[in-house]
């Protein structure tokens, strides 16, 4: 092999660069950490089923926002026919407060930064 030194160091640099995220995580010691959600004990199900909520809660919240603020309608009929008051603070945070033990867990984990909390207030939060 010609220029063995350059070739080998090139390959090593490439793999170090690409695997950079792993080293960062390993260095911070959080590599195995998984979000821990504080789920309400007395409720079986969210307004929709949990899997759907996990993926689509942001659309639901935006829809609620538009419906409540712009149309003055406050009642949400879920797919199982149950009715809910469309309110982030009254309905969502009723079960999921404080948000630090629910919302923030995943949002911090996947670095999704919602702008809800610049206005809305978590009654259970400090």
């Amino acid at each position, binding site marked *: 092999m010609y220029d063995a030194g350059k070739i080998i160091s*090139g390959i090593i640099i490439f793999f170090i660069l690409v695997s950079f995220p*792993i080293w960062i995580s390993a260095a911070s010691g959080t*590599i195995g950490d998984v979000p821990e959600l504080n789920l309400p004990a007395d409720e079986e199900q969210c307004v929709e089923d949990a899997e759907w909520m*996990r993926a689509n809660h*942001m659309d639901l919240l935006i829809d609620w926002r538009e419906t409540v603020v712009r149309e003055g309608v406050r009642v949400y009929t879920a797919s199982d026919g149950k009715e809910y008051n469309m309110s982030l603070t009254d309905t969502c945070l009723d079960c999921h407060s404080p948000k630090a033990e629910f919302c923030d867990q995943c949002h911090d984990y*996947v*670095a999704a930064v919602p702008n809800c909390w610049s206005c809305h207030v978590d009654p259970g939060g400090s």
Partner: protein
Amino acid sequence: MNALYAFFAVALLMLVAFFGVWGLGWNTLFAVMIPYAALAIFIIGLIYRVVKWARAPVPFHIPTTCGQQKSLPWIKSDRIESPSSTMGVVARMAMEILLFRSLFRNDKVQLEDKKRVTFQGNRVLWLGGLVFHWSLLIILFRHSRLFMQPVPDFMIFVRDIDGILQGLIPAVFITDIAILMALTYLFLRRVVFPQVRYISLPSDYFALFLLLGVVILGVLVKTAWKVDIEGVKVLAMGMFTFNPVVPEGIGPAFYIHIFLASVLLAYFPFSKLMHGPGIFLSPTRNLINNSRAVRHINPWDYPVKVHTYEEWEDEFREAIRGVGLPLEKE
């Protein structure tokens, strides 16, 4: 026709992933086994190919330049286009890798009015290629949030800049649009121009379709068929600790996305996609243009046994003289 072969190949891959997940429920296979395998093939294949290239000697000192070589001190030389030092080579390579310098010079020669030859810049390919590669890089960088914990602010900053249009269209990234447009152009270019179509092979189309498929599905799982990102990140982080947890309730689109990405990864070392590592090993670009100043010796030159005329004459002097032929040295 070549395009169709490639299209069917990619479609088949998508169907495989779709039925594997939706029909057979082999989620773990597609979410864990195949990505692991693809990664292994990528790493080993890449090293294998690079080492194989490195074993081939570069017999001549042949940088292709387009600037004045360093010669006499009062002649202005072009230190980047015709580098005379390692720094020059680094600068030249950086220009090539980051800006596709040589593709930029891709001029179009035309015979105007059947009278004179004109040169016109043809920068569309350059632009398309540059946009594609940079978008891909930024998209990969954005994906890095799924592989690290905690996510540095810099990543979030880049994502926010990329997503600046989200004030207009929700969940859209500039790079998503850019890469789709660039890939579409790169594909159409092969189909529309007869010359390019003629030299296009199924493998050329295959890479393009594979990339298009990955990108389109990636956009879909971000907009239409939303995916539980937290589950995805748990899976991705679990891969590093060899403890992957396959998330539940995620639709086939996500699995097709990572299956196509895995195929791309595994296909990489055995395809033209190796132009990436290859660019570092192109002797026409990574050498110093000093062949007039320094003597370069062919690396595999072995000591050839030479028999000069002088020696030959010494050997046969008597015989030559005998037949009366002239001698150089009496």
